[in-house]
């Protein structure tokens, strides 16, 4: 019995010790602050994070632009999105830029390199369903946004777009 308890204790200790590093952190990326903190001037969809945010007011504004300054990527690459649908994408950008609680999903971009990124962060089911419902009448021109973009014109345009 005692052996089990010891194993259990050993199993819980590392997460608690690493707990500080997983919560209330900002990843090392282009637009993130060093440390999360309160921001009273966050713009619209990013306001939910105003009490403790990894993003600045400028970043929160940039997240709302049709041609997102943050990554030179336009949500309007397949024509203008309907407002209700676009809102979800903006919220996703705010989540990525502002949330101080992404610790468990932060990864190195390149092993040993300085940059970091988020991978496999989960989404609430209600949010996912609402996203689907709001975007049913909008279009994209690529079935997978991970690759296959033509960046020659500055902001990403799909190579050989076909509306879906």
């Amino acid at each position: 019995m005692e052996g089990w308890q010891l194993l259990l204790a050993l199993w819980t200790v590392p997460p608690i010790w690493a707990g500080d590093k997983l919560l209330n952190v900002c990843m090392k990326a282009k637009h993130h602050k060093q440390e999360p903190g309160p921001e009273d001037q966050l713009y619209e969809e990013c306001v939910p994070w105003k009490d403790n945010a990894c993003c600045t007011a400028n970043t929160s504004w940039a997240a709302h632009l049709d041609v997102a300054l943050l990554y030179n990527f336009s949500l309007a690459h397949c024509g203008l999105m309907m407002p209700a649908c676009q809102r979800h994408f903006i919220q996703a950008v705010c989540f990525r830029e502002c949330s101080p609680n992404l610790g468990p999903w932060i990864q190195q971009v390149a092993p040993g390199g300085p940059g970091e990124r988020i991978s496999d962060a989960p989404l609430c089911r209600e949010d996912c369903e609402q996203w689907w419902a709001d975007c049913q009448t909008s279009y994209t021109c690529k079935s997978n946004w991970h690759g296959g973009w033509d960046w020659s014109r500055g902001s990403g345009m799909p190579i050989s777009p076909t509306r879906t």
Partner: protein
Amino acid sequence: MGPRFPLLVAALASCLPPALGCVICDTKVVEALKSLEMDYLPGHLETEHHKNLMKRVNQAVQDFKDLPLDEDSYMGVVDEPTLEKASWSLLKDLKRITDSDVKGELFVKELFWMLHQQKETFARYVALFQKDAFCPNKCGMMLQTLIWCSNCQKQVHACRKSMDCGERNVKVHEMEDMILDCELNWHQASQGLTDYSFYRVWRNKSETLLYKGKEPTLIKTMVEPKDAGTYRCQLGTVKSSPATIIRFHVKVLPKRTMEETLSSNSSNRSGMSWGSNMSSTTLQSSPSSSTQSPTVETMLRSLLVGLLIWGFVVLIASIVILMLCYWSEKNLGYSIDSIKAWFSTAKEAAQSSEVPEKKATQSRSQ
């Protein structure tokens, strides 16, 4: 290095069959096509071709929206006026064909040629809209009602250009009126606007609300040195963020000298009183000093005197002229005769010179 949106793939896997072309969003166009099928075709085309023709026509109209996507020419949206223009153009041409009573194969040819032309016309209208009317604001955020061509839905789109609309430097002389204008040319066209608010921004970044309402201009009369500083105006929207923010840096210059004040005040005051009757809000400061009013009065008095003197001069001059005319009337017969005589001698001289010239030219030509 693209953005990582983990669940986009799943969320966007939905696929709707291509919906309606843009022009078909107008009910008048739908009715016209229905009427074409029901009223015109029976009688102008063999029955067995009807279905096929209507299918092709509907397809052609839907294809209107299949323009290449480009942020300079077409983004999948139009505004109401553009849609009206495009559908009216199509209806006009359709009516021309049906009015001409053309039948059979010729009718089919004309119809599809017209649709081909109309698609190009539509592309032109849309490019014009995209260039000039789509999100016309150069700063701030404008809410614009747009129609999505893919599903004919009309929704409000947020045109975001920049967080604020810049800073202005305002210079005003002491004891004159300070005008802060917060209106931009696209405000009238924007949806969802609430109130203009003007704030005084102090050194410690705190703000005092001076005015909140529908007027876009704030006027403060009789400005004093303590009114110098920073002001901020904001136009609110139904969303949580404002449409426009403008900062004004106001400098109060010394009072203008007597001569300057006299010449500018008379025009200023008449202009200002008109201005405050129209659409602006005025902040009344403490009662003005009365040193300026007597000097204005004396100036006006001297102006009046000058006008009277000038009036007399004109009157006397006109009397003199009348007398002269009357006096010369008596001698009018004599003067007219002398004028006539002078004219007749001039004519004779001209004629005599013409005749020798004619003779000379005739001899030359021979």
